[in-house]
C-alpha cells in the first residue's frame, strides 16, 4: 500500500545519481534488491513505478528485482540457515535468539543508463 511512496523514492534516488555530464539520460533498467521479509508487493511497485516515472528519464525502464532470502544466525549455537517458513526459531538448537543476516533489504542496487545524445551522434 505504500508502494507509490517507494516508487517515488526509487525514481528520486536514480535521478539524483545520473551524472550531470549526461545530456539526454534515459534509464533502461533499475536493479533492486528486495528482501523476502520486506513489506513490498512487487507487482504494485511495478505498476506505481510505471505511472510515477512518466515524463522522467526513467519512463519505460524495466525494474529488475533480486529477491533476497531471509538468512538467520542463531545467537546461541551459531547455526546459520535460510528461513523459508515463518518460523524464527533455530533449526538446530531450538533457541529463539537470532540475528537476521538478510531479508530486510529494500535497496536500489544499480541502473543502466543511456545518453541519447551520444547515441544519436553515432
Amino acid at each position, binding site marked *: 500500500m505504500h508502494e507509490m511512496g517507494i516508487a517515488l523514492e526509487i525514481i528520486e*534516488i*536514480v535521478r539524483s545519481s545520473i551524472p550531470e555530464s549526461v545530456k539526454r539520460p534515459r534509464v*533502461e533498467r533499475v536493479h533492486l534488491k528486495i528482501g523476502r521479509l520486506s513489506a513490498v508487493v512487487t507487482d504494485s511497485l511495478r505498476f506505481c513505478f510505471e505511472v510515477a516515472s512518466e515524463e522522467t528519464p526513467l519512463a519505460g525502464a524495466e525494474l529488475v528485482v533480486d529477491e533476497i532470502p531471509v538468512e538467520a544466525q542463531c545467537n546461541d549455537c551459531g547455526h546459520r540457515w535460510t528461513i523459508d517458513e515463518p*518460523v*524464527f*526459531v533455530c533449526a538446530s538448537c531450538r533457541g529463539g535468539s537470532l540475528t537476521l543476516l538478510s531479508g530486510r533489504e529494500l535497496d536500489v542496487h*544499480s541502473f*543502466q543508463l543511456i545518453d541519447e545524445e551520444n547515441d544519436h551522434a553515432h
Partner: protein
Amino acid sequence: MPIELFLCPKARHHKEGHPHHHPHTKGPSTATRTSGGREIRVVRRVLDVNDRMAARNRELFAEKNVFVLNLMSSPGSGKTTTLERTLERLVPEIRCGVIVGDICTTADADRLAVSGAPVVQVNTDEFGGDCHLAAHVIENALENFDLEALDLLIVENVGNLVCPAEFDIGEDRRVVVLSVTEGEDKPLKYPLMFRECDAALLNKVDLLPHLDFDADLAEANIWQIHPDMPVFRTSAKTGEGLDAWIGWIRDRMREKTGA
C-alpha cells in the same frame, strides 16, 4: 495536515543544506560500459531518507528525555480504546502526549483528548489515504508539542499490519495490538510486524468465552515469529491485564530515562 514530505525528498535536501544535484552514493559511483549504455552502481536503501529522519527524531527524543511508543495493529483491534484506558492510568502522573494517525477522521483524537493529554491528529488522506506514518510526518506533528513538558509520547499508527512495520519513526519501542476477534494466524501472515515489535497485546479477551479463538495458539504463533516477546492478554473494556501492560511501559521508560 499536509502529508507531502516523504514524497518530496528535494525539499528536505535543501533543508539539510545539501546541494541539489549530487549523487547520493556513499562512495564514488562506479560506471562500467556495457552493451547499450553504462551501469551506474548506487547501492542505497530506498528508505534511506526516512531512516535518516527517524534517526533525527530519535536524537531529539533522547535530548528531551521523551520515551516514544509506536502502537500498531490492524483496524478494529481496540487500539484507541486501549490507549484511552492507558492514558487514564498514566495521566497526570506521567506527562503524556499522543499522535494519532488516521486516514481521514478526527474521531480517535476527539476520544483521546478527554484524557487531558495533548493529542495531535495526523490525517493521511492527501493521496487517498496513506497507510502508515513516516518519520517526517512525526517530525511535523512534533511542532505542536512542547517536548520539554512530555515524558511519554504515544504514536497510534494507522490501522494496518503491513506498511507501518517498514517505517522507522524514531520510536523507542514498538507494540502490536492483536484482538481475539481476528485470526490466531495473524502473526504468521504478518511476520515482519511481529518481528519488529517489542511487545504484543492480545486484546478483547473479555470476548473469549463467546469465540472459538484459541488464545494459547495465538501466543504460540507470536512466539514462533518472535520468541520471548512479552504478550499481554488485555481487555480494554474490563481493564483486565492493563496493569501488567502499564507496568511494562513504566519499566521501559525507567530504562531510558533512569527516572
